[in-house]
């Protein structure tokens, strides 16, 4: 199994390189270049050309790529076209809120999905099953932003029990409770983005496990059904469910962009939208790269978790 992990890591390296190449390729597609930052009404064409030479923009493309890659590895993501501050700082400020949002959403999703999925599996073909199936379909089909808008309408405007957006109440110092208060809706909405499909996974995983013979033995031993399902069955059903977390992270990232925009949550998602409108390509590239890293990382962890948890792979 150790070999499997090493092999998996080795495969990840060319993929990582490919990601950087792809990213660099997109950067060069983007209009505008770093020199624009230095232009003021007095700048002459000669100055521009000199600056271009100094910044290395006339070098062949592969040299530019390696320079960019080198900068990247040192944490230098360039400077924002709009705020002129280092992109790295800009991004680091926003990582926290996004991580908070995503992890809370994930937790909410699983808290909803696991019991419902188990229930749906144990009572297969009953009205509960059909109800949960319909709900999970609804969850998957409803556009994230529509649900977000709708919940703001209901909970913030009509019922007035939750804030309409932002991470802190204006004018206050924030604090844990305040943040939580603002976190509930966005996290719940983002959570529903994956809860629907997670319910299906839990259900089918449980169904497969429930049909196994070793559970029949447990029942024959006289154990109560509740214990049979939850103690014996759940353990094995959880295995594929846990590994799915890795697959859901890319969806969460995408969902975070929309959710943060609607709820004005100051995270990377909102920064993405802002950068797009202001055509701030360095920032955009940096976020894109970080997101890709996150996905790669989560895929890696998923594959390794699978290997750890599935004894068949251990003995190859």
């Amino acid at each position: 199994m150790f070999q499997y992990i090493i092999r998996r890591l080795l495969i990840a390296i060319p993929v990582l390189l490919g990601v950087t190449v792809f990213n660099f390729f997109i950067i060069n597609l983007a209009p505008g270049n770093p020199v624009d930052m230095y232009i003021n009404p007095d700048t002459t064409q000669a100055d521009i050309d000199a600056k271009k030479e100094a910044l290395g923009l006339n070098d062949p493309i592969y040299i530019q790529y390696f320079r960019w890659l080198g900068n990247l590895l040192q944490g230098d993501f360039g400077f924002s076209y709009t705020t002129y501050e280092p992109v790295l700082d800009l991004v680091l400020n926003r990582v926290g809120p996004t991580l908070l949002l995503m992890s809370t959403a994930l937790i909410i999703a699983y808290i909803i999905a696991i019991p419902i999925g188990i229930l749906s599996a144990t009572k297969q073909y009953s009205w509960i099953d059909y109800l949960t199936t319909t709900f999970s379909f609804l969850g998957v089909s409803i556009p994230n932003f529509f649900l977000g808008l709708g919940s703001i309408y209901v909970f913030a405007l009509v019922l007035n029990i939750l804030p309409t957006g932002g991470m802190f109440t204006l004018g206050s110092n924030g604090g844990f409770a305040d943040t939580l208060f603002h976190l509930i809706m966005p996290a719940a909405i983002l959570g529903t983005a994956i809860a629907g499909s997670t319910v299906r996974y839990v259900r089918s995983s449980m169904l497969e496990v429930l049909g196994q013979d070793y559970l029949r033995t447990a029942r024959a031993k006289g154990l109560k059904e509740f214990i049979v399902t939850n103690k014996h069955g759940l353990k094995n059903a959880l295995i594929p469910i846990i590994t799915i977390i890795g697959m859901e992270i890319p969806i969460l990232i995408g969902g975070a962009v929309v959710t943060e925009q609607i709820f004005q949550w100051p995270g990377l998602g909102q920064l993405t939208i802002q950068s797009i409108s202001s055509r701030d390509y360095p920032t955009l590239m940096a976020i894109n790269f970080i997101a890709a890293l996150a996905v790669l990382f989560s895929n890696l962890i998923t594959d390794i978790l699978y290997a750890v948890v599935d004894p068949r792979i251990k003995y190859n």
Partner: protein
Amino acid sequence: MSIPNVKMDTDLPVNNVVIPVQEQLGNEESYLKLITKRFFKHKLAVGGLIIFSLMVLIAVFAPVIAPHNPYSVDGEFAAPPSAVNILGTDEVGRDLFSRLLYAARVSLSVGVGAVAIYVAIGTILGAIAGYFGKWVDMVIMRITDIFMSFPYLMVILVLVSIMGPSLFNVILVLGLLGWPSIARLVRGCVLTIKEMDYVKAGVALGYSTPKIVFQHILPNCIAPILVNATFGIASAIIMEASLSFLGMGVQPPTASWGNMLNEAQSITVLATQPWLWIPPGVMILLAVLSINFMGDGLRDAMDPKSLK
């Protein structure tokens, strides 16, 4: 499955005697008939099919059904529903109901267009990777991994913003980025089918490689491709709606359910003009839900475990 009126194998005399058999032409159970039968047993799937068909009709006959021109700005600004404008008007004065109907065209063309593109790309790449194996397979799979490493929405946003938002660009980008999952699927299927004796028989019979891949292997892979493609259409519709909602998709004056929801980002509009944003949202929901139900029905109908 036994064939009525034909004696079972054990009774066949060794020498060539014609066995009296009723001509049963037309009764053969073709794969297509089997799938269709099973699909129609699925109530939700049939419901989805009906609703989706309605959507298609709306999209096709929008010019006939719509009371107003979706581009003309003759109404009042942001008016509530009235006899003239059934769903009211938007902030510029265009009739919302007509826009709602025309927007169906956008969603469906994105859904079908993008999926058609990426199914074509993904199937070919997956088939090549699966059939030829070795380093061809490795290269294609690494490229697939690279594409799958990027969070879908983010890359699309970036690309569309660089290329300039438009309906065509949205379809193009969605099509060019959606193929990895199909490629993986097709590759897996080809790997399995490749080992079947009837494919080896084709090689032994001297069939050319393209013939074997396209006429023998791929037709047996249609089931998962079709299911994936159906869900893909639903997913593409949501993608386009999200992009347009963020202002990065279909641009006004062209109507898209997504960009009709864009105005609701303002709290005022959200609070005071529910007729503006609720109908488009519901339409998206209905379209996507119906397609998802259809996909689910298709998947169950084609499930090999219950086939034969």
